[in-house]
């Protein structure tokens, strides 16, 4: 696997278009999934951001030295693109609406998701409703806690990889994870109890 990645990285560094195509095909779902979950973005917006992540990876491939896996490195780039996007959203909100300036980006996102989930709850299936509720609950967490929770509990990465991506220590990952799960337990109490009862 490492050898395969080494070959892919070497081709990426040469600017081989087929290698980039291979990279996109291998990681597109992971990158897109992370963007959707971390930003709570609609699919067209998430696609735009995921594309941006791949483009940034393409322009910065020379900075990849193989200290972490290619996937971890790509996750980190995706996180940085997402953070840039969050900051941009906040700046735009501050510029166009003085009232909204007081509202944090995550509250704005949560409100957007709330509006979305109100659009015909009868028409959505239970699973879809649960997905919406999880998305909404995630938006109530701070970006730091959300990132750790998404990477560990949803993307199934190890503590070490999460620490590398989030740029913090493993101990911090553990604390954030505990706090984030506690919050999610409160926010999703109804669904968790239903699941446990089944």
């Amino acid at each position, binding site marked *: 696997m490492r050898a395969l990645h080494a070959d892919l990285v070497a081709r990426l560094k040469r600017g*081989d278009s087929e290698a980039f*195509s291979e990279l996109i095909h291998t990681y597109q779902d992971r990158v897109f999934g992370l963007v959707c979950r971390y930003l709570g973005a609609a699919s067209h917006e998430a696609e735009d951001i995921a594309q941006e992540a791949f483009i940034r990876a393409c322009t910065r491939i020379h900075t990849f030295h193989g200290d972490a896996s290619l996937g971890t490195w790509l996750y980190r780039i995706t996180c940085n693109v997402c953070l840039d996007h969050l900051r941009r959203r906040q700046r735009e909100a501050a510029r166009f609406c003085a009232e909204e300036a007081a509202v944090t980006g995550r509250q704005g996102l949560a409100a957007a998701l709330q509006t979305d989930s109100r659009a015909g709850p009868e028409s959505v299936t239970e699973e879809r409703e649960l997905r919406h509720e999880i998305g909404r609950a995630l938006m109530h967490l701070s970006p730091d806690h959300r990132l750790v929770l998404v990477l560990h*509990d949803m993307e199934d990465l190890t*503590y070490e990889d999460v620490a590398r991506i989030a740029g913090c220590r493993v101990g911090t990952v553990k604390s954030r994870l505990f706090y984030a799960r506690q919050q999610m337990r409160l926010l999703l109490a109804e669904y968790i109890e239903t699941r446990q009862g089944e």
Partner: protein
Amino acid sequence: MRCPKGKELAAYIDGELGPVRSRQIAIHIAVCPGCARTAESLQAVRNLLLSQPRPPAGEWFAERTASRMAGLSLVRRSTPLSRQKTAAWGIVAMLALCIGTALIVRPWSRPDESLLARCVERFEQGVEQKEGGISLERCTSPWDAVLGEDVP
């Protein structure tokens, strides 16, 4: 044993603790209803989140991304010769063709010696050449004197 910290409980349910510490916490949870409840709820959250399918990228995501990259000229095709090399080879080929053509054509366009001698003679005699509206007085070289003649 005192109740473990929250982050230790999280690591316990993730199986990230060493065997000794893990066993200690397992023993504690068995006798502490508060920690047992917390561990159970943390595990439930983790199970719920893990059970969620990852939203897949759109069907043409890879193609759209690749075309966006190509539009930004970030990647090049994996052919053996790059564009610059191809252009350089094209210029070299053109130059070779021009030089070759010049070498082949030049002897044919050179007038024979007798014609050249006749031209010089006429120029020295000052014969006025009116054909073509050019007078010999204004000629600067013998070649102007034969403007009216057919040069092979």
